[in-house]
């Protein structure tokens, strides 16, 4: 079991409780979609899993590959294979994109006891991944996210995912702000990264992304809890009926 979330309660620094008992199980190789209206706790869930400051877990547990996730600091979780594709990737002026990614990859390789890659070896890895994503290499020489358009930022996130090869990838509203073409490119990249030992959690507001990245399971997050789970047709139903009509319902078994 890649990720096991049990009765997770979390609140913000000002005391507001956002997650009110989230239960979720993600198996190896599975793609889960978490959908919900604004304010349901989607981004909080992503932030808490990634280990961002400013949130307090008040109850519940999260097990990641048989380890207590909360016992690890944010960077340790990353080195253990947790990857968060940010909804709003931040700019870091003066820091070269390639340099940054190589530092990150080598930090993870060191952690795993693998030898670090030098610039030449890294470049080969990069070129290979670029082909996979059909991404131009001009983004590489620029500073991290500086001057990137919305679409370029999202593609950069997926590109990093491709290079770092995480075990658990959490994509936080990756589709927001993207036009159809950019969305296709991102989706192709993500689909290309689907492997039996990698799990992906897609956090999204709209069904659109799920037309391109087919999930195995869909969950509805509302008011800090998962109120319904189902297969991919649940997403279509959501679109037809809207979020307002959902309340606690017993889990609907995934079809196929």
């Amino acid at each position, binding site marked *: 079991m890649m990720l096991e979330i049990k009765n997770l309660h979390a609140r913000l620094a000002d005391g507001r409780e956002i997650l009110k008992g989230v239960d979720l199980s993600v198996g190896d190789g599975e793609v889960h979609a978490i959908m919900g209206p604004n304010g349901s706790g989607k981004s909080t869930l992503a932030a808490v899993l990634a280990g961002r*400051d400013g949130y307090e877990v008040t109850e519940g547990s999260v097990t990641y590959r048989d380890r207590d996730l909360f016992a690890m600091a944010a960077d340790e979780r*990353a*080195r253990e294979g947790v990857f968060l594709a940010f909804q709003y990737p931040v700019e*870091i002026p003066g820091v070269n994109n390639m340099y940054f990614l190589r*530092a990150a*990859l080598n930090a993870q390789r060191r952690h795993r006891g693998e030898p670090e890659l030098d610039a030449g070896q890294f470049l080969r890895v990069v070129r290979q991944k670029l082909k996979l994503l059909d991404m131009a290499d001009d983004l590489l020489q620029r500073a991290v996210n500086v001057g990137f358009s919305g679409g370029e930022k999202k593609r950069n996130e997926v590109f990093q995912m491709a290079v770092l090869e995480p075990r658990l990838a959490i994509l936080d509203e990756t589709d927001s702000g993207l036009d159809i073409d950019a969305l296709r490119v991102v989706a192709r990249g993500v689909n290309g990264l689907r492997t039996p030992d990698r799990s992906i959690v897609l956090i999204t507001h709209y069904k659109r992304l799920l037309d391109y990245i087919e999930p195995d399971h869909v969950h509805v997050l509302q008011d800090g809890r998962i109120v319904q789970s189902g297969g991919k047709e649940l997403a279509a139903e959501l679109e037809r009926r809207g979020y307002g009509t959902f309340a606690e319902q017993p889990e609907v078994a995934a079809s196929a």
Partner: protein
Amino acid sequence: MSASLETQQTIRELSQEGYKYGFVSDIETDTAPPGLNEDTVRFISAKKNEPEWLLEWRLAAFRAWREMPEPEWAKVEFPPIDYQAASYYAAPRQQAAPKSLDEVDPELLRTYEKLGVPLREREILAGVAVDAVFDSVSVATTFKGQLAELGIIFCSFGEAVKEHPELVKKYLGTVVPQNDNFYAALNSAVFSDGSFAYIPPGVRCPMELSTYFRINARNSGQFERTLLIADKGAYVSYLEGCTAPQRDENQLHAAVVELIAHENAQIKYSTVQNWYPGDAEGKGGIYNFVTKRGACRGARAKISWTQVETGSAITWKYPSCILEGDDSVGEFYSVAITNNRQQADTGTKMIHIGRNTSSTIISKGISAGRGQNTYRGLVRVQPRAQGARNYTQCDSLLIGDRCGAHTVPYIEVRNPSAKVEHEATTSKISEDQLFYCRQRGLSDEDALSLIVNGFCKEVLKELPMEFAVEAQKLLAVSLEGSVG
């Protein structure tokens, strides 16, 4: 691995475990009795066998110094300095100037090895000539021969006075006159040694000239005097990097650097300064009160100052450019870090005098701990300075909430065709940036180091390769313990 890289490696390793240069050499020194009066000046001049004109020059400086009030306006605080309590001269004993390294006191050579400057290796190095100053007197000068073939003079100041008095006489004090300011006057009176370089017309100095030096003997402030002249069409890149041993009493460092660039000449002066900053409580540490100024005397002359300042308890320095020649260019790139209880009041002065002169100022200040970091700059466009251009960018980064970052630019324009632009920002390290890096697997320290290096990128890329690597490591070391 090439010798220069090995030197850098050594330095890196040494600086990794705190301030490793805290050791004292026990070579017996000739020390002047403490106190500063005319006799002290004569003592110093006599010790160095200086000609009459230089003694008179020193005495004029001393008389001016006596009348001057100590400057108070910089935003730094320090306990009053007792100028009469220090000794102004300390030279290691030596018979005659060494003709080669073999003649140098082996204890001195061992000192340099500890510092990671293996002079023996320097001959084989891919080209860095070193003028090593031990305490107040130059000891070894290498590469004189090879440079001499090109007509380049690079030697200690003392040697220049003896071998090239006409050059010294012509240029000494022409950029920083004896009575320019309190510390310059002090330096002019009691300077013991420093570097001298002259690049003849049309010659491009093939190697970077550099100097390592440190302060050693008890209570001896260090007063170096450096004079670099690039004649018409010449080019020289000069590196200055310093370390100092662990000490309890504050040590005063009041150097004077004068640069002269003639028509079409270019001088690039880079400094990585790592003087002992004082302990976490602010005790000990060097006071660095330096006057550095370059004059672009001829048309199309160019002077660039690049500095990475991470040490010193107190820093007071404003490397400046006087843009006299038409189309001359002045540049100032600086990274200054203050941590714990360090204080820095630094910046630059760009004086536009000729026509179509331009200047660029990029200053990056980082404050952590209880450090206070002030940028103080002056851009002055004189009435005849037609078409002057200046661009200034000052950015300050605050790490933690006990430190301070201040920006005080003076912009004084007296010509309507000037274009002067100044921008400054102050902010803290973004939590978002730190988290982004950590989510990609980088530790807290690595993330900080990455972001800080990115912040300083524009300045660091101006440093010669030799220094750039050392500078990056120095940044990380100086900020240790400031985050988290």
